[in-house]
Structure formats: structure tokens, C-alpha cells
């Protein structure tokens, strides 16, 4: 019993300590933004490895998610004779929820895990302390550009995901199942609001990009510098990112779409 209480107290304390370290790390990262801006090269390289490399998986998944939505939506809606609203259904679910959430989950799996492994390995091979020896701040040189790259890439990827998904839904809906193409687009345009739906979706994806990059980079930076430690950190990145994305999505949805 005593042991259990001890364990409970210890694990609570470690998790709070970790949160504290994470917050400090985030502040350090954000304060490094100003010193990255005059060196866009650093950012560009990271945009390549974080954004461009995720491009393919995001677009292909978006296409398939849109096509599945088109199929499933059609079967359900045609029971009520409301196939014409397929466009609204596909677009609303993609723009509001699936676009930001699924692309963030994919992003955490594709880019987040790679970031953690990279930083963790840098730490394990003492590259980070080597930089410190040369009076180069590793946070500013290594972490901040990656953080910014994630923050910029995520909304773009989510927008791509939604756009490709809507086109996929249209291919299935009006190409295969015979929903009128004009109705598909016009009903969609009538119901989807720019301010309420699209902008809120973009805000969501920015938040997710922020959180995923933060978790991925911190887990890497905080990893125990052994091969096992790095592998554990990579797992934690994916798990924690998924939790945070889904939890935050619930909170953001209640805040954004609660009124109507």
C-alpha cells in the first residue's frame, strides 16, 4: 500500500516535472524564432523534410478518405432521397473535422516520429552538446527551424487534405454514383461558410501543428540518449500527439461550433 502511494506520488511528480521542462523548452524554442528569420535556409531545409516529404501521404489519404465519405454518405443519404446534399456532407466533415484531425495524425506519424528520432539520435551521438561546446545554441540552430516548419506546413497540408478529399468525394459521388455535379457544388457552396467553417478548420490545423511539433521536438530533446531511449521517445511522440490532437479537437469543436 505504502509502496503504491509512493509510486503514485513519484509518477505524478515526474509528469509535472516533465510538463515544466516541456514548457520551458517551448519558451526557448519560441524565443529563437527571431534568430531564425534572418536565415531562411535553415527553415527551407526543414520545410522540405517536414512538409514536402509528407505531401504524398497526405494527398493520397485525403483522396481515399474523400472517396469513402462519398460512398458511405451516398448510401445513407439516398435512403432519404437526399443524395444532392452529398457535397455538403463531404465538405463539412472534411473541412471541419477530418481534414485537420486526420492530416495531423498522419503528420505526427510521418513527420513527428522522424523529428523525434532525428533529435534523439543527435543527442545520443552528442551532436547537441558538441554544438554547445562551439557556443552554438542547439535550440536556436536545430529545434526552432523544425518547429517553425511544422507550424507552417500543417495548415497547408490540412488544406490540401480537405481539397483533395472533396474532389475525391466528387469523383465517386457524381462520377460513379450519379449525383448531379451542379448540385454537389452549389449545395456545398450554399452551406459551407468561409468564416465559420474554413477559417475554423485552418485555426484547428495551426493548433495541431503547434502541438505536434512541440511534442515531437521535446520528446526527442528530452530522450534518454540510448538507442532504447530514442525508440521509446519516438513511440511516446506518436501516442501523445494522437491523444493531444483528439482531445484538443474536442475542446476546439465545442468552442467553435457550439453556437449553432
Amino acid at each position, binding site marked *: 500500500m505504502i509502496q503504491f502511494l509512493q509510486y503514485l506520488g513519484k509518477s505524478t511528480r515526474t509528469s509535472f516535472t516533465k510538463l515544466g521542462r516541456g514548457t520551458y523548452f517551448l519558451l526557448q524554442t519560441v524565443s529563437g524564432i527571431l534568430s531564425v528569420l534572418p536565415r531562411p*535556409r535553415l527553415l*527551407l*531545409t526543414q*520545410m*522540405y*523534410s517536414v*512538409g*514536402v516529404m509528407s*505531401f504524398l501521404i497526405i494527398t493520397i489519404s485525403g483522396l481515399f478518405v474523400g472517396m469513402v465519405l462519398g460512398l458511405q454518405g451516398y448510401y445513407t443519404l439516398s435512403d432519404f432521397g437526399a443524395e444532392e446534399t452529398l457535397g455538403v456532407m463531404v*465538405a463539412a466533415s472534411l*473541412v471541419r473535422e477530418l481534414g485537420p484531425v486526420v492530416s495531423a495524425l498522419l503528420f505526427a506519424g510521418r513527420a513527428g516520429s522522424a523529428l523525434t528520432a532525428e533529435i534523439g539520435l543527435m543527442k545520443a551521438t552528442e551532436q547537441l552538446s558538441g554544438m554547445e561546446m562551439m557556443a552554438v545554441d542547439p535550440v536556436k540552430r536545430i529545434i526552432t527551424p523544425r518547429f517553425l516548419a511544422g507550424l507552417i*506546413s500543417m*495548415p*497547408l*497540408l490540412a*488544406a*490540401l487534405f*480537405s*481539397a*483533395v478529399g*472533396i474532389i475525391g468525394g466528387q469523383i465517386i459521388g457524381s462520377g460513379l454514383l450519379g449525383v448531379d455535379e451542379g448540385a454537389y*457544388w452549389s449545395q*456545398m*457552396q*450554399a452551406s*459551407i*461558410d*468561409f*468564416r465559420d*467553417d*474554413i477559417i475554423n*478548420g*485552418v485555426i484547428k490545423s495551426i493548433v495541431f501543428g503547434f502541438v505536434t511539433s512541440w511534442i515531437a521536438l521535446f520528446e526527442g530533446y528530452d530522450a534518454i540518449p540510448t538507442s532504447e531511449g530514442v525508440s521509446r521517445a519516438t513511440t511516446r511522440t506518436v501516442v501523445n500527439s494522437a491523444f493531444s490532437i483528439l482531445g484538443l479537437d474536442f475542446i476546439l469543436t465545442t468552442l467553435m461550433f457550439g453556437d449553432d
Partner: protein
Amino acid sequence: MQHTSTQDTLVGLFVASGVVGLFFLALQVSNLSSFVEEDSYTITARFENSGGLKIKSPVSAAGVKIGKVSAISFDPKTYESVVQMNINAQYNTIPDDTTASIFTAGLLGEQYVNLEPGGSDVYLQKDGKIEITQSAIILEKAIGQFLFKSAEEKK
């Protein structure tokens, strides 16, 4: 990672395609193209009951959308619902004896304001008032009345 100009090009392409995606969402998917406020003027109508009418509900005449509802409020003195509508400025020849009624598009569709133009030569101006109105049909009320009536007849 070594820097190459191919990388720059790919990053450029990536950012460009992301921006194109956003534009696609803004213009093709949402109503941003009709979001630009056109010139419009406001008229008001008082209804006994405005039912499920919402802000942004369409205002149409002869089936064509000519404006939208901009505000709905309750008048505590007359116990009426005051509905403000923005009518596109190009439709400035609505007679002042127009009837405004609240209809439902289809059985379960959304509610909208329908304007039935009268025969007057005087047109509604900015902040004009529509005097003749017809309330929304509340489905539950109608069903209730119908059931009540058929029960009466059976006696």
C-alpha cells in the same frame, strides 16, 4: 542534409499547392464568392411568429433569392418578432403593399421569407416596413389542430 536547388523548387511547389488548396476551399467550396457584401438596403417586417427563421436565412421573391435576413428580435411591447432583411440594391422596386410570409423549403427544409409583391406604385425605401405579413406555419400546431378537429367530428 545537403542543400540543393531541387529542394528549393519542391518546397516552393509544396507551399504553392497548399495555398492553391486554401484558395480552392475558399472559392469553390465555401460561399466566399458571394461573401463580398453587395450594396443592399434594409427593410423590416413584423411577424406574429417567425418560427425557425434564422439570421442569414434567404429572402426570396418568385423563387429567386434577393436578399437575406440580417437580424431577428422580439418586441416586448407588441409581442411580435421583428425581422430585418437586407435586400440587394438592384431590386429596388418592391411595392410597399408587399406581403411577407415565412415558408418552409420542402417538408423539412429550412425556412425562408417569401415576398409577394403587391400592386402599389410606391416602392419600399431604405428602412421601409412591410405591413402585411403572414406567420410561419408551425407544424406541431397544425397537426394538433387537425387531430383536435377530427376528434370533434367523430363525436
